[in-house]
């Protein structure tokens, strides 16, 4: 029998199916409770992430199919998800599918208020299609909560960038 962790780790994200929940960093824990149930802990990427219910359903069904009858999925809100938790394998999978992986997340400066930033965020990115560094930000918000929109001024292709949070 495949371990419960291996099964849970192979479930893919409903919105970015090239990533497993493990690669995305939302799979926080898989343990067997005293009553024998498999308890899976997941964390939302964003507060309003609409994929949470689907992830929960997918985890339960995949574990059922693998022979685990009693499965519970719990939400772990803290610590808050960071794009730094996307694994190296996840980053390669993003690039292979034409998405730009996030850079290092900004470290919270606990000494004072979050600074206001009225200039477009500077990111050191390359176009995932042609590799050019000549890219421009179209919007800080994209088709899912976790992505920004860019376009490459060399090959003119638009692409998505997973945001640093």
């Amino acid at each position, binding site marked *: 029998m495949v371990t419960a962790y291996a099964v849970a780790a192979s479930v893919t994200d409903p919105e970015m199916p090239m990533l497993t929940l493990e690669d995305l960093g939302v799979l926080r824990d898989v343990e067997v409770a005293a009553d024998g149930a498999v308890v899976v802990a997941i964390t939302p990427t964003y507060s309003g992430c609409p994929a949470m219910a689907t992830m929960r359903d997918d985890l339960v069904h995949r574990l059922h199919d693998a022979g685990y009858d009693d499965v519970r*999925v719990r939400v772990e*809100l803290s610590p808050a998800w960071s794009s730094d938790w996307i694994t190296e394998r996840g980053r390669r999978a993003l690039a292979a599918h034409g998405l730009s992986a996030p850079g290092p997340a900004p470290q919270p400066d606990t000494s004072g208020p979050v600074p*206001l930033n009225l200039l477009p965020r500077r990111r050191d990115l390359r176009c995932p299609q042609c590799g050019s560094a000549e890219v421009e930000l179209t919007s800080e918000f994209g088709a899912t909560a976790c992505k920004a*929109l860019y376009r490459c001024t060399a090959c003119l292709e638009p692409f998505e960038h997973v945001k640093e949070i």
Partner: protein
Amino acid sequence: MTDHDSVYDGLLGSDTSHWAFGQGRETSPSEDPLAGVDSTLPEGVDGAELAAYCLMLGDDALVLSHRISEWCSRAPDLEDDIALANIALDLLGQARLLLARAAAADPGIAPSLPAGSPVPPEDALAFFREAGEFRNARIMELPNGDFAHVVVRVLLASSARLAIMERLAASRDHVLAAVAAKGVKELTYHRDYAGRWFLTLAQGTDESRRRLLAALDLVWPLYAEMFAAHPVEVSLGEAGVGVDPTTVADEVDVVLEQVFAMSGVERPERQPLAGVRGRLGRHGLHTEAMSLLLAQMQVVARAHPEGRW
């Protein structure tokens, strides 16, 4: 005529798990957004008081989310349409967690529904309360205007909320602390988005500047109310569980002064919108717009109190 009951039969063989929702599910995993989260009350905190506080922050997010979502498919261009929809979605997520926290802290706070109703407590709070039971500041419910109006409103509201959430991340209530820590990351994006558009409109054409100033004039009278502390906010602020909004007013002012200075805009001098005998949005006093907003937001849920979605 047909040898199967559903037009979808046969499309996916017998594996109904392809369907995200509905059809042929053997299990129905809990949809509780706080499933498994430790919801023990912090020591010395009254559940009803914590619930009242969660409603204030939750209603701010819910009502503003609804107003911003009204922009969906109406923004000046596709990128801003998507941006506004994302901001609304983040706020809706915060609202859901906060309303769920309210109901967990004080189960009696959620309106009661017919026995057997599948409506979760956070939905009962969102869709089955009357205007007078909502605790949002009135800036959230103001009817929409033009694009400059939504920019100004998001700038003022997200600046205040960000400052509150930064402090709330240290709350003795673990759920509030976690919701706030996540909220800070989201609100930072919201405030930057609105701040950049404020600057762009102020420094753009005569028409964009005229509209921005008109919007600021319209929204500004509702700014001060976000820092008028309700007794629950004061009490939970002292208990290290909530945040007394008066303590962040100066800090938020500094942020806005930065935006105004870069944009070449004077801080408005309009007087705050009055309450009635000291009652404001936090006490359940709302403008006429609130009832109309709720009528639209709640109509489907109320028409089908036993509906499954």
